[in-house]
């Protein structure tokens, strides 16, 4: 049954495997048909033996060489028995008939063989086309995906379909027993222990071949039902992992075409892994560059923001120290006030820096308690150096107390107010608003300046973010004030957002949790200490 063996594998799946019974029945019916035809036309046609060649041709085309030869011999005997005198015996009277019959046999065998070859070629061509299509389907995956995680399931699904595997999976790791499974066509089922498996050897100078092997301690007994195949995934000689496929033991070993597809799939997966690695390296390099540039931005800003108040302090102190100048008491008072305000500003910067590092290190430990937001707002306004700008506080006395750390909220308001004084308009207002449905209170610091572009609003709380201006070397702040505001607010369970203020400038809104107040407070408002100074 060599012809049958040839038709296995891809061809077998395309044409379906035929049982010996089917073939025998086909041969018998072909012979019966042709015999009837011979009997029918024998009266008019002198030599009808070649009609049997049609049966041989048909069987050869459909089932290959061996059935064709069988058909030839059977036709030879049948013709001899039925039509060669003396009929109904296998005896042949005339030597001419002998020659005739032998010629029929020879021609039948040749025709049968040719027909079988013809069919085989056609099947091979179809196989090639199918294999090429499968390979194309697998190699194309890399172009349409970005990561191994994306590519592997598609490659495996296509591979399993092209090679009729029951299951295919892909693991990354340096040895079969320590692999991390990246993708698997069967989900949920436990993977078979590697144990006994067949591994594809791909020596550079010889054709690829399968070698039975065993790894690990588990599964020393061979599985009765399935055979596991492994193809090493290697790139430039470096082992990255394995491509595994499994099919029923009853099935044959992967044939050459299937082996090629498996090898191609393994190579594609290897390329995908390398591509992932390169992408990751590039990302890491990018992150490193970014953090370097952040560091230099921090140094730059710290240097600028600390030197600026320091310069003013030195100018004030230096002026006062100049004995050749007779400063009036008023001049002196102003100089000392300036020194005080600038030192306060420096202190705030240093505190922001410390807070930033605490925020980034996750080391903020707010001491939450119920406080009156209005009082904290008024204290913050009193401390800020307004530089001639009008700062109002509009917090209704009915505003419920907020659950906050008063030091944090003080720092938040100081940062927002200083920003408003430095970059905002001439009128600044701190407003409070009750959001009873959300159990929250909103505090906002708004100015009537030029505001910031809508695009920039979302980035205001990013570290080192500077609102873009016409010239990027324009007046620079450290760009950490608002980052600290957001970090402190989040630490207290609050949120921040930036929006356009009612007067066209910038408003930064801090939403804080309202403190739980006893039910009695609904009838009788909580006494809120109100400071006279505004």
């Amino acid at each position, binding site marked *: 049954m060599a012809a049958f063996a040839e038709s296995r594998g891809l061809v077998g799946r395309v044409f379906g495997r035929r049982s010996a019974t089917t073939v025998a029945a086909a041969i018998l019916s072909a012979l019966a048909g042709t015999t009837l035809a011979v009997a029918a036309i024998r009266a008019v046609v002198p030599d009808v033996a070649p009609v049997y060649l049609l049966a041989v041709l048909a069987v050869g085309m459909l089932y290959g060489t061996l059935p064709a030869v069988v058909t030839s011999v059977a036709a030879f005997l049948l013709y001899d028995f039925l039509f060669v005198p003396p009929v109904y015996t296998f005896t042949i009277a005339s030597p001419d008939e002998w020659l005739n019959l032998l010629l029929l046999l020879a021609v039948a065998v040749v025709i049968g063989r040719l027909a079988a070859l013809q069919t085989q070629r056609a099947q091979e061509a179809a196989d090639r086309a199918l294999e090429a299509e499968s390979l194309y389907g697998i190699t194309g995956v890399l172009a349409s995906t970005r990561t191994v995680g994306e590519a592997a399931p598609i490659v495996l699904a296509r591979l399993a379909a092209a090679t009729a595997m029951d299951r295919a999976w892909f693991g990354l790791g340096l040895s079969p027993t320590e692999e991390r499974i990246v993708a698997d066509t069967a989900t949920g089922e436990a993977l078979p222990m590697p144990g006994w498996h067949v591994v594809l050897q791909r020596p550079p100078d010889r054709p690829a071949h399968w070698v039975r092997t065993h790894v690990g301690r588990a599964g020393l007994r061979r599985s009765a039902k399935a055979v596991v195949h492994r193809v090493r995934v290697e790139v430039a000689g470096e082992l990255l992992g394995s491509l595994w496929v499994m099919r029923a033991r009853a099935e044959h070993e992967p044939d050459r075409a299937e082996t090629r597809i498996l090898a191609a799939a393994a190579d594609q997966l290897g390329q995908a892994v390398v591509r992932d690695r390169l992408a990751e390296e590039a990302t890491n390099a990018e992150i490193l560059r970014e953090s370097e540039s952040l560091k230099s931005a921090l140094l*730059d800003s710290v240097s600028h923001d600390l030197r*600026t108040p320091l*310069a003013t302090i030195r100018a*004030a102190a230096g*002026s006062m120290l*100049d004995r050749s100048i007779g*400063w009036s008491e008023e001049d002196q008072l102003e100089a000392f006030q300036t020194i005080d305000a*600038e030192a306060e500003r420096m202190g705030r910067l240093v505190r922001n820096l410390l807070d930033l590092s605490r925020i980034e290190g996750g080391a903020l430990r707010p001491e939450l308690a119920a406080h009156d937001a209005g009082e904290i707002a008024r204290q913050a306004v009193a401390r800020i150096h307004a530089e001639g700008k009008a700062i109002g506080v509009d917090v209704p006395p009915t505003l419920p107390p907020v659950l906050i750390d008063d030091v944090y909220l003080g720092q938040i308001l100081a940062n927002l107010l200083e920003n408003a004084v430095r970059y905002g308009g001439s009128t600044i207002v701190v407003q409070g608003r009750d959001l009873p449905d959300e159990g929250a209170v909103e505090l906002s610091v708004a100015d009537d300046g030029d505001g910031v572009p809508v695009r920039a609003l979302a980035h205001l709380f990013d570290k080192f973010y500077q609102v873009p201006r016409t010239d990027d070397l324009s007046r*620079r702040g450290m760009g950490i004030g608002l980052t600290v505001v957001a970090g402190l607010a989040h630490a207290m369970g609050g949120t921040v957002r930036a929006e356009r203020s009612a007067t066209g400038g910038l408003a930064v809104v801090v939403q804080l949790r309202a403190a739980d107040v006893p039910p009695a407070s609904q009838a009788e408002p909580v006494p809120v200490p109100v400071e006279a100074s505004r």
Partner: protein
Amino acid sequence: MTPTAAWLLLVEDEEPARRLLRAYLARRGYRVDEAASAREAMRAWDAHRPDLVLLDLGLPDLDGVEVIRRIRRDAATPIIVLSARGEERDKIAGLDAGADDYLSKPFSVGELEARIHAVLRRLGGPEVGPDGWLRLGPIELDPTRRSVAVAGNPVHFSPREYELLKVLLANQGRLVTRERLLRAVWGLEYADAREYLHVYVGRLRHKLSEAGVGPAIDEMIATETGIGYRVAVSKAAEPAEAPTAG
């Protein structure tokens, strides 16, 4: 020249610093115009043409370097840059744009006044005498005969050394960046070859020192690390409008 106080334009966006510096400089006898932005600075420049500009580079509306370029289009008025930016590239950008000197914040008011004084002295005194000679202390350079003498005794210099000394003497009271020196003496293509400069300035100082100037040469041609050289002003050229303390 009439002995009037020098008219300064102080461009500084930090309000407290500006107020204090203005008060101090006014008390030291200068007339001071103030500007809080580049736009105000341009307006003040166009209106009064001050004798000297004190310029903070970090302005809210425009980079200070633009202000320097704009002033340099009109006049050679001395400009002293004041900046809190620590980066040397900022100083160099300002100086290359035409600023005369640079002060990093925080500076002492005394230091500021000394710089103002030095720059104004150069303005008042002739760089080039009626004879065309360049002088710095005992050093005399005769451009027509390409000769240099210290206290009357001729000193021999190579052509490159001579050119370098000439550029330095012509920039008294200024902070000259290395790049400007290299361009002037070696030409454009050598603007990055800084090692030349160290060697040549070293030789120049050595020869002048040996010829009788002595260790004072290190102050006359002082190194400003990372930037260039600051050339002192010849004592002979006292400014006519030295301000009086008020």
